[in-house]
Structure formats: C-alpha cells, structure tokens
C-alpha cells in the first residue's frame, strides 16, 4: 500500500522508463536526499540543482523547448513566488508564438499546511496559479490518483503544474496503484523495502531501488473530477488536504441525516464543470473548500461560475470556506488550526449551508 510520496516516485520511475521522462530536478531532488519528502529517491534521471528557483523554472522551459520531458521541483511552493513571471512566460509561449512552440513540462511543488511548517512551509498556490493562463493544474488527494495524474501530466503537450498537498504525503490511500505490492500491511512493508532509501547513511550509500515490475500506464485524465461520496443534500467541492476532511465531515454529518455529495476536483484547470453542475442540479446547494487565503481565491471563481450558470437552481447561497486572509500561517498549533479549514469548521460550514436551504 503505497504512500503518496511512493506513488509519485513510482510514477516518475514508470515515466523515465516508459514515457521518455529524461530530467527530474530541483533542490536536493537527486542523491543523496531524493527530495525533502523522498518523492524522487532512486530515480535514475533525478539530479540536484543550484539553490535558484528561477534557474529551475527556466531550465524546465528550455528543456521543453528542446523536446525533452522533465519534472522540475520547487522544494516548497512558498519559494515559487519569485518565478511567477516565468510561469506566466511558460503559459504564454504557445499563444505568443501563435501556436509555433509547445512546452510539455511539469512543475511539481508541495503546497499547504498540516506539518506545522510555519510562515514559509504552509503556503497554498492554487489561487495565484489558476490566475495564470496556459497551464493545466492538478492536485491529487490520494496515492493512486497521484500516480495517475502524474502520468497524465507527463503525456500532456502543455505546461502542467502538479501541486502536492504536503499534509497527505506520507499518507496511504485505500485503492491500489496497478502494479504495487498488495494493499495490506505486508505490501506496505514490502514496498518500503523495495523503494525507500534506507536512513542509515552506510546502507544508503550502497542502495539501489528495486522497482515493482508490474507498474502500468494507469492515467487519470486531466480535467476530470470524481465523486468521492454521493449525497443529495449538498455538493461539497474540494481538493488536496481538505478533501479527505470533507469526506470525513460528510460521514459524520450522515449520522445527523445530512447527506453531502463530495467531489474531488483533482484538476483545478481546466476543471470538471459538468460534474459540479450536475451535482448542484441535484443538491441545489454547494460549499467550496480550499485552504488558500480567501480573497481573490479560486473558490470565488467557482462561486461566480455557479452564480452565473445556476443562480436560479440554488436553494441556499453558495459558500466558500477557505484560509483566513492573513499574511501567513503561524507556527503554534493554536495558530495553524485557526488559520485554515479543519474538520470541525468544514462540518460546521456544511451544516450551515444545508440549514440555510429554502
């Protein structure tokens, strides 16, 4: 049973052996560390860069121009904000050249709170990123789809942004990635022994990964959301760290007779409006949940779209639950909890929307 980090690693391994992925790079991405979250351990194409985010994104653009498939990592999305011009450039290159150039490149970066990362290891990036045209943006919330969406990115002809919710990174899913050892405890242990680099430096120095042989081209198509839980009372749309919390909240509320339909958006752009709209037409109420700060937030776009297209179908006002509009997430437990949606606040917001239905 793979963790999220292992799923990414296996997807990258599959891609470097089957899909022509030739460069996986970023700060501490290669040996000895294999990434601060271990997601790039043991990959034959992984290498370490200088400590220079602009160089990293620039290199990815250039590699794509040269026809090379790459995954460039920004160690934390908190450090991507000096490259926004380059992300915009990547997003406008095809358009500016009137279709002359395409940039198949993938940027991967951990986002969000949940590890007590304090001011500079807790940022979200979905709001700003969805404001940049020309990209496709994914944010898987479980290992299996982390695998499948990575393969989708690596087969797209456009720049793709792979947002990795760091709170989930060592967590396991309940669906198997095709080709991984069995889903049980034993399988987890086996997988760990096969593809996790030993912590002991002496063992690590000799170590070679032993990749599962049955990995497949299992792909989650970009642009498709998924109904994670069905329900008739309200549509809850989320992604990333808050998605499993929404599911949990839905289960808890079911005990009180509230049936929430939970959608994992999975792709933030271009997003699955059809799935959302169909669900809202059934439930007549919607709550959007994410943890980016709440002003000029992507959830506000979704609310606008909802109002634009489904205004007269709503029986309650559509709502957004997002991060507080403050300059950072404070280190103390008390502060982090109060800054971004938690299970309790999500549960409360769902109940409130449902209670407000006409």
């Amino acid at each position: 049973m793979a963790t999220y980090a292992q799923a990414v690693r296996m997807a990258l391994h599959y891609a470097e052996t089957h899909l022509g992925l030739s460069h996986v790079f970023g700060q501490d991405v290669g040996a000895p560390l294999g990434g601060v979250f271990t997601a790039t351990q043991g990959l034959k194409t992984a290498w370490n860069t200088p400590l220079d985010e602009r160089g990293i994104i620039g290199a990815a653009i250039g590699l794509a121009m040269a026809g090379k498939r790459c995954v460039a990592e920004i160690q934390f999305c908190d450090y991507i904000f000096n490259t926004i011009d380059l992300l915009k450039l990547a997003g406008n290159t095809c358009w500016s050249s009137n279709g002359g150039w395409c940039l198949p490149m993938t940027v991967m970066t951990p986002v969000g709170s949940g590890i007590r990362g304090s001011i500079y290891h807790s940022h979200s990036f979905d709001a700003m990123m969805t404001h940049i045209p020309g990209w496709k943006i994914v944010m898987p919330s479980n290992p299996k789809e982390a695998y499948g969406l990575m393969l989708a990115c690596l087969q797209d002809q456009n720049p793709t942004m792979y947002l990795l919710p760091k709170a989930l990174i060592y967590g396991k899913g309940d669906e198997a990635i095709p080709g991984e050892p069995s889903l049980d405890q034993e399988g987890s242990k086996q997988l760990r022994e096969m593809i996790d680099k030993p912590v002991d430096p002496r063992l690590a120095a000799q170590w070679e990964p032993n990749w599962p042989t049955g990995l497949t081209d299992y792909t989650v198509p970009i642009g498709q959301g998924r109904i994670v839980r069905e329900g008739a009372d309200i549509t809850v749309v989320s992604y990333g760290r808050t998605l499993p919390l929404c599911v949990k909240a839905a289960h808890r509320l079911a005990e009180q007779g509230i049936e929430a339909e939970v959608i994992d958006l999975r792709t933030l752009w271009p997003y699955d409006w059809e799935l959302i709209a169909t669900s809202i037409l059934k439930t007549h109420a919607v709550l959007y949940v994410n943890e980016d700060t709440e002003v000029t937030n992507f959830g506000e776009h979704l609310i606008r779209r909802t109002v634009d297209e489904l205004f007269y179908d709503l029986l309650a006002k559509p709502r957004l639950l997002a991060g507080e509009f403050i300059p950072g997430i404070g280190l103390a437990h008390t502060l982090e909890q109060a800054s971004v949606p938690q299970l309790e606040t999500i549960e409360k917001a769902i109940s409130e929307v449902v209670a407000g239905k006409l």
Partner: protein
Amino acid sequence: MNAATPLASSDLLAIYDLMVQSRILEEQLIKMFKQGHGFFWIGGPGEEAFNVPLGKLIKKGQGLDYDFLHLHYRSNAVLLAMGMDPVDPIRQMRNTATDTHSGGRNFCGHLSKPEWNLTPITSPIEVQYVTAIGTGIAQRDHKTDAITIVTGGDAGTAEGDFASCLVWSTRPGQELPILIIVTNNQGGISTSYATQHAERHIADRAKAFGMKTNVIDGNDVMESYAAIAEAMHYVRTERKPFLLEANVSRLYGHSSASGANFQAEEDPIARFRECLIQQNVLDVTSIKEIEEKHTQAIHALISQVLTERMPDPASIFDYTYWQQKGRVM
C-alpha cells in the same frame, strides 16, 4: 566560411549586402511606425556589424543538432543573415494575421521560428538567460556540435537571471555549451551604463566562474566575425560556456517610445563600407545599387503587407494550449 580562413571578397560583399538590407528594413519599420502603420518599433540599427556575422555563423535548423537561439529584441539582422524573408518583420510591425512569428500578437522585433530553433523573443528583460539553461542542458546531454546561443543588452545584466546563467552553465563536470552574448550599447532606455555599473567589463563577471570571455568592438565586422567564430568553435568543441561582450551602437535610440530618431553614434555600416571601398570590394555604383535594390524590395513588401488582413477578434483564444482553437471553457 569558417573561423580559420579569411573571408573572401564575395563573403564580405554578402555581409555588407545583409547589413544594408537590415538597416533599410529597420529604417522603413521606423517610418511605418511614424506613419501610423504600426504601434511600436524596437530593433537593432547599429548592431549590424555584429549581428550579421552572428547570423551567418549559426548552425541553422530544428532540433538538438542545430543551434538553439534565445535572442533579444534587436535581432532582426541575425535572422536576415540566416535567410529570413524581410516580409516577416514588416508583418509583425503591421500586426497582420499573416505574421508567422506571432500572428499579429507581439511587438515587432519579437520573432519566433521553431524551424530554426528560434525560441520566442519576449519583452521581459533577461528571462532568455534562464531558458537558455534548459536547451543548454539538452545539448550537453546530446552528441552534437550544436550549441545554445543567448543574447541580451548591458543594462539587463543587472537582473539576477544573468547571474543564474553564469552559475548554471559552469556547474563542475556539468558545463553547458552556451555562447552567452552581451551587446553593450552603454545603457538601458535612458539610463547610462556608467551610472549603474561598476564592472569595467560585464564579461569580467564570468571570470569568477572560470568561464572564458572576450570583449570586442562589435562595430567592426572582421573583429566580430573572428571573435564569434572563435567563441563558437570553443563552445562547439569544448562543450563549455563562453561569454562574449560586444560594444555596439544604438543608432535610433531605444525604441519608438524614445522617438526613434537618428543619434550621432558610430555607424558600423559606414565604417565597413569605407573598409570595403579601400579594399576595392565595393565602388560607388554598387553601393547605390545595393541600397536601391533593398529599398525597392522593402517598399514593395510594405505595400503588400498594408493590404493584408488583420487578425480575427475571435482568434484571441487560439493556441492558449497546443493546437487548440476557440474558447477553452
């Protein structure tokens, strides 16, 4: 033509011819702007003695076995020397739908040509110095003599991206085959180099990284040709970066934003012309003929372009994604 052999008269004449063509083209583009046939002009008059030899020496083609170009907005002459049809910049000036470089979307001087590995020239200063890293990496990994060439102005070297290129191209054991070029015209828009830069030569900044460098008179065709050839030879064979700084003129100011009027700086064409006259390669008659030939040709092209259609408003959505047409959502 290559580095070792001196240039034959026919080569010199060909270079001269291209320099004149390029200058006439630029002057006509300025006129188009002044007559209201375009919204903005920026270009390279004053850089021909450097840019034409550069274009001539580029290994032209598509893919890893050809040179990758990350140029800035004064590079029309480079492209003309590579064989670009002069109608291309005219169309871009006029922002017609027929503009093959940007479909009427981008400013003149912002060329893009995948068939020649010309990555899109873009306005933000110096980002080309980081995108060049990527093609450089790809070419380092590939068995070829092709290289990555990146050019930029002097003022722009103050952006961190220039430093990034120095750092990344010299990583020990991972050196990149990049010819880094700085065309130094002693200033930015209105700000003079001397007021902002303590470096005697910008090229000196590369020395701390053990990079080979050269500083040349970019207004001198022969010196430029030889220096570019030498630098390219080094990069092609050693697979390591080289920084070449060329001092050049800026004959019509920064751009149309600053008036695009003639400035009294050294004219590299006049200088080369004198030299060719002295060598008996050129005479008064052929000088006139060359000028007239290009003037007429460019006039004809402008007349043609003025009749071409403007982009369709509905096309604004096209190519946000690869091969996509129409609105996305």
